[in-house]
């Protein structure tokens, strides 16, 4: 009975915690620019995410090690520093984007500039981490995140062309703005396959003292939670495509995106969009800050744990404190939150190999995965997507950033 409850809670919180600023921004932009044509990268990214999340949980349940802990153990500290440094820089940008998203949500409702909200948002997140237990981040914030289900209601009410939606599941070549099309593919993959999720998930499994009896629960959470989460990202794309594409609106800011649900749901659509953006971003801020603290502490051999008193894990606390102290400044300086989001998602995709390749090695090593090593299908799907994301990122990002397309 207890495990059934954990399973249900795990699935529900995975759904509620799925959407964040990257998914909302990249799916909205994709829908506005290419209608339903870019549903396929969301599906592809979600499939890969299911595999990776399942592997993270399996690794933790079998080895009792987190992904970071196992990486350091298997490859040694000298190697571990490379992904730690690379991912920390990219994750900092992602965190800044999430702070920007939450701050913009507050601007939508209050009219006070997002630049003023960035520091209070970071402080509020820090306060929740300082005072709250792990369950707050893992369960309660994602439960509020169920407000994002409004995108599904909106998508259905907007009455999209469902046959065009179905066609979007199959990759097709763009008829215009090719560089922008591929840039958005990279963005969507980066937003969907966020490496911090795996570090966070495996740390949660270790904090929850998972063992091999949790392998089935882990599988169900990964498959059902992430699938429904992917469905939410598709709903954002469909809503955006139904509203902005026929109107010929190119999305360049959250103040345009905020109108996505007003046609279908009136003022409720506006306020629920703002709530979804705020809660989605707040959940991601907490997860990212903790994921970096976990990764650093586990890699450097420091004591860690969100359920410990802060004074018992001072260096763990210092990492997330420092990160949250630095996170708001790009936004305070006035850099557009949507621009920070696009850049951070593209860079996330570009650095996927650094995060995932060592992980794939671990999952094929019986020392860490026991008799539950990876099958060939999982390895092929994940490696193929990483290579594709990397090539597209190398090719498309410079062109897009130079103002092409």
């Amino acid at each position: 009975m207890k495990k059934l409850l954990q399973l249900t809670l795990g699935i529900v919180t995975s759904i509620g915690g799925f959407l964040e600023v990257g998914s909302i921004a990249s799916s909205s932009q994709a829908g506005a620019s290419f209608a339903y044509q870019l549903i396929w990268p969301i599906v592809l990214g979600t499939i890969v995410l299911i595999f990776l999340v399942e592997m993270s949980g399996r690794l933790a349940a079998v080895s009792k090690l987190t992904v970071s802990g196992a990486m350091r153990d298997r490859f040694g500290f000298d190697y571990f520093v490379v992904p730690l440094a690379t991912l920390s820089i990219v994750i900092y940008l992602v965190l800044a984007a999430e702070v920007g998203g939450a701050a913009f949500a507050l601007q939508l409702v209050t009219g006070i500039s997002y630049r003023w909200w960035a520091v209070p948002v970071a402080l509020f997140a820090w306060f929740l981490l300082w005072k709250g237990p792990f369950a707050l981040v893992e369960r309660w914030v994602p439960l509020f995140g169920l407000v994002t289900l409004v995108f599904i209601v909106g998508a259905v009410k907007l009455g999209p062309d469902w046959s065009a939606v179905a066609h979007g599941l199959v990759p097709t070549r763009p008829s215009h703005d090719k560089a922008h099309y591929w840039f958005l593919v990279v963005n969507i993959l980066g937003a969907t396959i966020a490496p911090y999720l795996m570090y966070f998930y495996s740390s949660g499994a270790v904090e929850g003292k998972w063992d091999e009896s949790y392998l089935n629960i882990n599988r169900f959470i990964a498959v059902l939670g992430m699938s429904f989460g992917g469905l939410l990202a598709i709903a954002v794309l469909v809503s955006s495509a139904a509203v902005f594409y026929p109107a010929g609106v190119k999305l360049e800011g959250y103040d345009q995106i905020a109108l996505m649900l007003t046609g279908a749901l009136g003022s409720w659509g506006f306020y629920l969009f703002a709530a979804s953006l705020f809660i989605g971003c707040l959940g991601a801020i907490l997860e990212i800050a903790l994921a970096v603290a976990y990764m650093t502490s586990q890699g450097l051999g420091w004591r860690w744990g969100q359920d410990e008193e802060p004074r018992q894990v001072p260096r763990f606390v210092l990492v997330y404190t420092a990160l949250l102290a630095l996170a708001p400044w790009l936004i305070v300086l006035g850099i557009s939150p949507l621009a920070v989001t696009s850049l951070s998602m593209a860079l996330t995709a570009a650095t996927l190999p650094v995060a995932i390749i060592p992980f794939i090695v671990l999952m094929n090593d019986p020392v860490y995965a026991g008799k539950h090593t990876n099958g060939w299908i999982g390895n092929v799907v994940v490696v193929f997507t990483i290579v594709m994301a990397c090539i597209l990122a190398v090719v498309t990002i410079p062109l897009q950033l130079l103002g092409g397309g």
Partner: protein
Amino acid sequence: MRCARHRGVGWSGVVIALVALAVSGCSRSPRDQAKKALESLHSWAVSTHMVGERWMEGDVPDAYASKALQSFGKKVRKERGKIASGKLPNDMKQFLAAGFDSTARSADSLLSIIDKREKSATADILKQLAAQARAADSVKERLGAE
């Protein structure tokens, strides 16, 4: 790309093909520049219209509408500033400049209407914005047909 794969070319072939594909999508001929500028004009006119319409319907708060219109006005003026430096024919430059100026003025008018809460005055501005978007569209269509 499809040919490269069939002939068994490796990753380097795929990368070269993708670079060519992306570069071809980013050419900067005067016609492409004009098309982009017209799309931008259309997009800002429609976005401004959407905010005004939603405010009039009571779907969005005053605070949001004011902030959004201020931001759109700034962006429209920035787009207008880019036209002078572009390699566009003079008549196109004049059309775009007038279009961006008119859209920016409409955003300002809506801002003042929101300040005074005169919802009845919104309809005229929305008509102007809709006409602006249609005009940009029709010029873009003519450009495509030439």
